[in-house]
């Protein structure tokens, strides 16, 4: 399959990094360490899945970090009185709602998505800070079902990693096995051309942002459960990490290019890097530099390879 060939270099990069860190930190490839890696990646990967949809449509979403914080705080606020289901609905719903706003404004006006979602980021952050005066809100230890979202394991695998896997499968299916996916690729490639084939581009675009917002809500729930508390000020800069994962995975800002598999691999590469640099005891200042260099190299090699095969 073509898709498989396209991600071989990414797989190669991941394996290379694993080998390097194996050499630097012998326990790196232990089962428990890899499971821990999967859990750590999950929040960023879930944000990046949503980001991939938006990037495929030719847009960008800077608000996911703030929506993650808002989703978490909303859920934490509802949880004591409303219970588990209501909290889930609140967390995901508020993300989807702001995503709807992003989508409608982007589709209906010509305001660039960068600005639309920057504004949403500020508004959502303000809303999150309304809860509890901006202080963290702890989750009562009795809320076991909710806390399990972030901390339980199923057959030894951390639940967040399982959610990540399930959302990956759903996302891939959406992109490659539904008409919506075809239409998203088409409108990302050329909005006008998609319109002329009868695709309701506004609808396609709005759905991408709604899903992206909802996924940010899911990530917020998971983070809140993991941290036993919701932090209104959390998630700052998460959008850049999610964008980086999608870009490393081959998504193009012009729209119409990118896959869930690529994005997952992008998130994995960034996760390996973060974990490996920590475990190898690299000074935190060098961690920044190495991460910058690896992101540039990964996207650069993808761009270069594509040029070659053209």
């Amino acid at each position, binding site marked *: 399959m073509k898709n498989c060939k396209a991600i071989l270099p990414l797989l190669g990069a991941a394996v290379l990094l694993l080998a390097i860190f194996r050499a630097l*930190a012998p*326990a790196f490839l*232990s089962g*428990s*360490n890899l499971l*821990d890696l999967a*859990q*750590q990646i999950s*929040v960023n990967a879930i944000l990046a899945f949503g980001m991939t949809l938006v990037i495929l449509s030719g847009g960008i979403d800077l608000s996911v970090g703030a929506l993650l914080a808002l989703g978490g705080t909303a859920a934490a606020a509802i949880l004591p009185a409303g219970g588990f289901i209501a909290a889930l609905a609140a967390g995901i719903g508020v993300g989807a709602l702001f995503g709807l706003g992003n989508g409608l404004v982007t589709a209906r006006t010509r305001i660039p998505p960068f600005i639309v979602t920057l504004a949403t980021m500020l508004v959502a952050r303000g809303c999150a800070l309304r809860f509890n*005066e*901006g*202080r*963290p809100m*702890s989750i009562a230890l009795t809320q076991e079902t909710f806390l399990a979202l*972030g*901390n339980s394991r199923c057959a030894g695998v951390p639940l967040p990693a399982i959610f990540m896997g399930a959302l990956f499968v759903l996302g891939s299916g959406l992109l490659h096995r539904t008409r919506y996916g075809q239409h998203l690729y088409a409108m990302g490639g050329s909005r006008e051309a998609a319109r002329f084939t009868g695709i309701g581009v506004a609808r396609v675009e709005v759905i991408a942002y709604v899903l992206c917002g909802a996924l940010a809500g899911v990530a917020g729930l998971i*983070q809140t459960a*993991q*941290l*036993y*508390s919701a*932090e209104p*000020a*959390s998630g*700052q*800069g998460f959008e850049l990490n999610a964008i980086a994962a999608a870009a490393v995975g081959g998504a193009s800002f012009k729209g119409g290019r990118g896959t869930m598999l690529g994005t997952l691999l992008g998130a994995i590469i960034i996760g390996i890097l*973060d*974990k490996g640099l*920590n*475990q190898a*005891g690299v*000074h*935190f200042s060098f961690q920044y530099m190495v991460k910058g260099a690896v992101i540039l190299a990964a996207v650069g090699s993808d761009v270069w390879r594509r040029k070659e095969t053209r």
Partner: protein
Amino acid sequence: EKKPAPDTAGAAGSRFFAVSFQTLNNPFFVDLNDGLKQVIDEHGDRLVTLDAQFSSLKQKNDLSDVIEQKPAAIFLNPVNWESVRATLIAARNAKIPVIVVDAPVPDADLVLAQVASDNVAAGRLAAQALGDARPQAKVAILQYSVNKACVDRVAGFTDVLAKSFPGATIIARQDVKGTSEATRPVMRDLLGRFPDLDAVFPINDPGAIGCVSAIDAAGRSGKVLVVTVDGSREAAQFILNGGIHSTSAQFPKKIGSLAAGAAYDHLAGKPVDKEIKVPVTLVTKANAAEFVK
């Protein structure tokens, strides 16, 4: 191996320790890190320092990375005192002792010890210094309420102000991250809004320096009293030059060395105090020179 050392410990000279700070953009934590490092280096062991950059999730992930590597002990300065519970549980399951430095956590039973300045006392000292100098002060408080240490300082400060100086009034409270960059514009606008504002309690030294800059920019140098907490060299300089009135000096290096000492005591099988409070001292013009050097 001998009996008392827990099974995670490894032999002296090959052990490693990890510490995670909420931020390293504050001389306080860098000094605390130095205190830890000094003791650990003396034992021939290794310390890995992690910067959480004010993100609880990063802190959790960083620590789960090192827990996988089974350090002899973890020192923890939490971003958010509630959000470290999962980390504490993971460490207990891995039988790694955790020593909390500077800011307390609510789950005291999950940690080996807590080593911190007496932050309530630091706030009290600041209020006392302010009240003595200007009993009728109109005060602004620049708090940072995510962090428990900062919350304690403000609690001590308001407590003394209310009890001992009824003439002083708190006319504004703003929440701001304790960096110069974040504090300066907030202070600048408070000065614009309250022409009669004449004292401020920023909860730490970097914040105080931001305040001094804002006061100078507003042309009100010397008219607004700045009292704060930390005792850094930079703040001491400003005390000598009149920009800052007082700072309640903490001794971060001492906190670091006491925390490291507690860890080695535990590894040697000795009992360790659950709570270790490091006293604070007031720094004013009178004694600032000692803190500059």
